[in-house]
């Protein structure tokens, strides 16, 4: 037997994937810097950098630390949470069309959050601007998670009970859940008072501007924990990519991995939704863009989807702010314009078929 058995192309391929990840992260940082510089008060690169490190004049520092940076951080964290959750959902459900927003998890979470804010008084509306101040993030988040989980439970039950259903059927179930929860939210809004109504409606469009550093801390912790869990399962996701039976024979507890992964996805996306509202299609577009870059290898796809989701959302936010400045358009609408064509393209390309 030969002593040296090597695959010379392998390490090069791994390096190329690492470079792709690095490139996405660098683009993300650049986009974040641009996003911090652009706005009604425009900061030059010099002003931006000096304000960033505690120098410069007070206005620039305040604009940066109280408005721009929290906004960019929210976009990065929410985008990362949605992007990696989308990749994991597509894997464990073996469905290229899966993501928090297409399966109704986001809408469930939004309904839950609305219940938390309106019924349990988890939030109040701050003055004239339509920003929801979440006073009791735990209650709102818990409600969001519980209702998001209801969607997840239905989706999981359907995918278990009827394995013969195609990917399209699961998305149709998502449509039903979305209608149900959107209806519920509408009813809540109908009985809410005028100020709350305006705020909740605005908030369901998706708004990155309302988060403070405390909420961002929670979001960062949960997103980081979710990423660590997903990465620890990356071999299992790769095994699932080779088919459920194969994964099982490689020692993966398919049922348990699917259940826990979906719960973690639900927690991460429900939290994101409860802080910034519904942001659609990031979880669909980011993983598919990254699949073209690094393939279906979850060792690279997971971090790339997180970085790619963050990049997409920060770009969408930038577009929403500069398109008809000084008006800030709802970022959820921008991502929908971006995501709907991709969704249709996926349907047409594969007919919604997924490879076993």
């Amino acid at each position, binding site marked *: 037997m030969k002593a040296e*058995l090597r*695959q010379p*192309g392998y390490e090069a391929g791994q390096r190329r994937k690492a470079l792709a990840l690095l490139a996405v992260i660098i683009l993300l940082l650049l986009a974040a810097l641009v996003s911090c510089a652009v706005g009604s008060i425009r900061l030059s690169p010099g002003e931006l950098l000096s304000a960033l490190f505690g120098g410069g004049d007070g206005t620039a520092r305040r604009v940066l630390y109280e408005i721009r940076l929290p906004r960019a951080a929210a976009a990065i964290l929410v985008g990362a949470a949605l992007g990696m959750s989308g990749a994991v959902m597509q894997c464990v459900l073996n469905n290229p069309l899966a993501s928090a927003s297409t399966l109704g998890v986001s809408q469930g979470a939004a309904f839950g959050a609305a219940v938390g804010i309106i019924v349990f008084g988890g939030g109040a509306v701050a003055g004239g601007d339509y920003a929801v101040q979440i006073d009791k993030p735990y209650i709102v988040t818990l409600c969001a998670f519980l209702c998001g989980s209801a969607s997840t439970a239905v989706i999981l039950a359907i995918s278990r009970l009827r394995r013969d259903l195609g990917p399209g059927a699961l998305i149709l179930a998502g449509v039903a859940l979305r209608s149900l929860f959107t209806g519920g939210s509408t009813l809540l809004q109908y009985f809410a008072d005028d100020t709350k109504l305006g705020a909740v409606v605005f908030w369901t469009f998706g708004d990155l501007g309302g988060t403070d550093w405390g909420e961002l801390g929670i979001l960062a912790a949960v997103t980081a924990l979710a990423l660590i869990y997903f990465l620890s399962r990356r*071999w299992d996701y790769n095994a699932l990519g080779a*088919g459920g039976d194969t994964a*099982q*024979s490689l*020692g993966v507890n398919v049922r348990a991995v699917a259940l826990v992964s979906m719960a973690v996805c639900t927690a991460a996306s429900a939290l994101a939704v409860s802080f910034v509202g519904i942001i659609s299609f990031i979880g669909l577009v980011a993983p598919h863009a990254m699949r073209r870059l690094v393939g*279906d*290898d979850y060792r690279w796809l997971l971090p790339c989807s997180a970085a790619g989701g963050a990049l997409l959302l920060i770009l969408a936010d930038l577009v929403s702010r500069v398109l008809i400045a000084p008006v800030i358009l709802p970022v959820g609408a921008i991502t929908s314009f971006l995501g709907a064509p991709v969704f249709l393209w996926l349907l047409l390309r594969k007919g919604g078929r997924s490879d076993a």
Partner: protein
Amino acid sequence: MLEVRGISFGYSAGRDILSGVGFTAPDGSMTAVLGNNGAGKSTLIKCMDRILAPRSGDVLLSGRSLFSMTRREHARECAYVPQSPPGGAVSVFDAVLLGRRPYISWDAAAEDKRIASEAIERLGLAGCAMKRVDELSGGERQKVSIARAIAQQPRLLLLDEPTSSLDPRNQHGTMKLLRELARERGITCVVVLHDLNLAVRYCDRFLFLRDGGVFACGGREVMTSENIEEVYRMHVHVAEYMGIPLVVPFPEIQM
């Protein structure tokens, strides 16, 4: 020594698909699992690999129960090659490296990569190790599946109709390769087959299933026209041509 004891399986309230299936096979042997559609062949090997949970029974490998092992231990002893070859946008190398999953704790070590490359070379896939699996032909993809199973370094290898999507040349190539692997590494192979000629030519043990039970099991001596006719409900002749055993069917003769 492989010892399968009294495996029974059924979905919820329905009738049993398998009832009390048991057989033995020596190390390094190749057992063909034969029978009509619906006889429970695929179900049997899925139960042996714990992909399906049998109602009762056990699988012993050198006296140790596979069913009392952890999933990880089990995956080191027993590998499975599914009927449909894999697809997906992953390289052949990564697809084979997946076979090391039962040994990997956080990341693949140099040893894992060496074993994966060795499996790739053994299967003659070295030329396309960096190609994407979904760019390969059906025969090559089947080999990727087998290479992944070999990289698991199992003592028991279960294959579900490994030749069903292959052309004749690849069918014989695959069967010949499995027989070689079984002999050189002492891997016990259990192969679900529809093609009786492949079975009689490459396997040394034969397990006939009928209606979820064992109809006959043994060496070449059970491959008789009587047994085959009883199981498949079709007239056959077992003959030999240039030293090669053949099963010649005569479906036009009414039974």
